[in-house]
């Protein structure tokens, strides 16, 4: 199954992409995708435990199970206002 990961702010800088398609083998959680990203983009680890996640533009946590076609957004703590 396929999902799209999009990133913002410093996560985008550390990963070097703002949007990327990922192929997942079987049942995967947000945390599974995150661990794969940590392996590929080591420097992202410095934001571990601070990162925020949204699936299809709704906040979720790492345990959220992904569905085919989901949009997973990963970003650092927000700082608007």
């Amino acid at each position, binding site marked *: 199954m396929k999902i799209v990961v999009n990133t*913002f*702010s*410093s*996560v985008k*800088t550390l990963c070097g992409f703002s949007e990327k398609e990922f192929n997942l083998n079987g049942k995967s959680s947000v945390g599974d995708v995150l661990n794969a990203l940590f392996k590929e983009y080591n420097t992202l680890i*410095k*934001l571990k435990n*601070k990162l*925020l996640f*949204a699936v299809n*533009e709704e*906040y979720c946590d790492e345990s959220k199970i992904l569905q085919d076609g989901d949009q997973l*957004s990963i*970003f*650092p*703590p*927000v*700082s*608007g*206002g």
Partner: protein
Amino acid sequence: MKKILLQKEQIDIEKAINEVGTEEDGAVVFFIGRPRKDSSICEVKYIEYEAFHSMAVKEIEKIINDAFQKWPITDCIVIHRFGRVELREASIIIAVSSHHREEAFSSVKYIIDTIKKTVPIWKTEFYFDGTSRVYDRS
């Protein structure tokens, strides 16, 4: 009335003030957020805001709906800039009108406090020495 704008252009504050409030509203409370020059690191020249637009608008909408649930308010406008914002320009304005002032104060405070926690918008500070820093708490 509820209105949310995410825009690159400067905010027309007078327009927003004239839009909020019916003839039954005795109070308008207005919050204006501006970039601050004195960061902990060095002097800020300007700020750039990046937004996850569609989700940011949805999150602001949720916050405004919560405020309308919590307090008897009449009108609410939230306008947030993205892109480059200079010192003394408004990066955000929140305007709320209500019959009595207590609820306008409470809801504006609630809205700005919550926006700063949950709305996917990020700032990068650009300093006078040419450096910059993303606010990601890393």
